[in-house]
């Protein structure tokens, strides 16, 4: 009997240590990132660091504004494209798709979400970027590009298709399966009774979706979108391939630019001193952004239950 008790204690201790390790690792990560980024934050000042656009090795002057804006803009553009497509997909899969195909397509989508991001990056560089440059850029350049004032922002640029727009499109392709599978799951949770009542009143499929399904699932849908946003913020390889990592003012959405992750992937290896510390500060921003988006998403996703 006593032997069993001792063994139980040992086992309990082991598992307790293992679970504490998760806490320790996350805290250690936070502390390490703060300590490593302190030299830069002290030297430039937090507010100054966040609002400086310059990223200049020669002058040893580093600011986070451009990478931050690049990450923000590429994520927003990606969401603008991905959300409607993913919603359409989810609607198709829950409402229109024949039952036999539903499972297969759903699984295929989930498998596509598992493909490593470097593969998406390669595809973006060799297939999507040239395609967008040849067919899509002239189209936009000659329509939106002709508009007064904002027109210059849509000017076509010839740089091999390496630009922030291509990066956003790759991001949106990557998050489409993600959003649509969350949306699909949420829509499948709607009690059939609710939908049937709506049909019983004579509503069409679209009206039922619009007035019953979407209001019922809106929290989960918002949660899914925010989760996808978190994923897009931290996506590295796919973006790094096609963004060009150029530290200059953004003059068009078809110009090369930079994001937090691309500047890290490109410059971390050769960095030292203030530059390295600035890169750690960018990592810290991403780390905090992850926990922020996740806690918002969790609240939204949990809210319905």
């Amino acid at each position: 009997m006593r032997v069993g008790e001792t063994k139980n204690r040992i086992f309990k201790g082991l598992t307790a240590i293992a679970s504490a390790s998760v806490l320790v690792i996350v805290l250690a990560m936070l502390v390490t990132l703060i300590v490593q980024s302190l030299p830069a934050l002290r030297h430039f000042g937090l507010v100054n660091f966040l609002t400086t656009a310059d990223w200049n090795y020669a002058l040893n002057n580093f600011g986070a504004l451009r990478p931050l804006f690049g990450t923000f803009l590429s994520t927003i553009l990606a969401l603008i494209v991905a959300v409607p497509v993913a919603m359409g997909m989810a609607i198709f899969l829950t409402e229109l798709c024949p039952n036999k195909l539903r499972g297969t397509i759903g699984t295929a989508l989930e498998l596509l979400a598992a493909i490593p991001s470097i593969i998406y990056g390669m595809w973006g560089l060799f297939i999507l970027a040239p395609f967008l440059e040849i067919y899509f850029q002239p189209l936009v350049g000659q329509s939106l590009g002709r508009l007064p004032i904002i027109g210059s922002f849509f000017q076509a640029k010839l740089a091999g298709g390496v630009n922030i727009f291509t990066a956003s499109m790759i991001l949106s392709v990557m998050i489409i399966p993600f959003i649509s599978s969350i949306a699909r799951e949420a829509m499948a949770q709607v009690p059939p009774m609710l939908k049937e009542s709506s049909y019983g009143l004579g509503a069409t499929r679209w009206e039922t979706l619009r007035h019953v399904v979407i209001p019922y699932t809106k929290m989960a849908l918002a949660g899914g979108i925010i989760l996808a946003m978190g994923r897009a913020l931290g996506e590295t390889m796919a973006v790094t391939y096609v963004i060009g990592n150029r530290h200059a003012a953004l003059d068009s959405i078809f110009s090369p630019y930079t994001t937090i992750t691309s500047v890290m992937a490109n410059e971390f290896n050769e960095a030292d001193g203030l530059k390295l510390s600035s890169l750690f500060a960018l990592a810290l921003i991403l780390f905090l952004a992850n926990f922020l988006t996740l806690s918002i998403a969790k609240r939204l996703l949990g809210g319905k239950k």
Partner: protein
Amino acid sequence: MDNLKRRKIVNYVAMTLAGLCAAVGLVLLFLILYNVLVEGIGSLRLRLFTQDPAPPNLPNVGGLRCAFLGQGLLTLVASVIGVPLGVLAGTYLAEYGRNFKICRLISTLSDMAVSIPSIVIGTFAYAILVKPMKVFNGWAGAVALAIIILPIIVRTTEEMMTMVPWTLREAAFALGAPYHKVITSIVWRASMSGIFTGILLAIARVAGETAPLLFTSFNSNHFQLDMSQAVPSLTVSIYQYAASPYESWVGMAWAAAFVITVLVLFLNIMGRVIIKLKKKD
């Protein structure tokens, strides 16, 4: 009647748009697979697996043998660290600590840690393992990958074990089994297939990771499996080769991309099959 017609048209248009969205999305996603297949198989040569990297200007020599082995080694070491730690941690959260507040916190934290950008984990491994040693090393890469695996396994283990009904445990307790015996021979066995699937999916995720290796284990062009040095990596090689101006290297990057995609998809499908088989029982 006119109103009805209008509503029907609106419905028809909306549903067609949804169908179109689905079609566009599916076509795009399958186009990726198609391109990787065609380009990859087109440049797949046996020497990819049997030879080490060679200069790009030499015709018909050079492969990525060391990169395959290096990537395998890194993934293996990461799994050896991350899997047991994760399973044990998940066990504590689901069993001994199920009523503790701190364990709910750890559980939530793991949930969030799953989506920490992998490049951020790379910077952490760099700060604790590369900076002090002043040299890129395999341990740093393996630790970074292990940190990515850990929360995924913690969460799946916890979830799978929580799903095991309490009556099973009570039956074992009634026979006089101590708690650790109940866990190892009852709860673990009941949730084995789920935990195993979680492990497979976690390994599939890190097998294709690039970002956390960039400044930890980095890459090497030589047959070099010493973990205290830079270790060759398949994904980092893909990254470097694809961005190079040499046609032969780009071809090799496609071939390697094809192999890694097949491997990752295979692991994912295996995981799903295991769950399906279990459900049938």
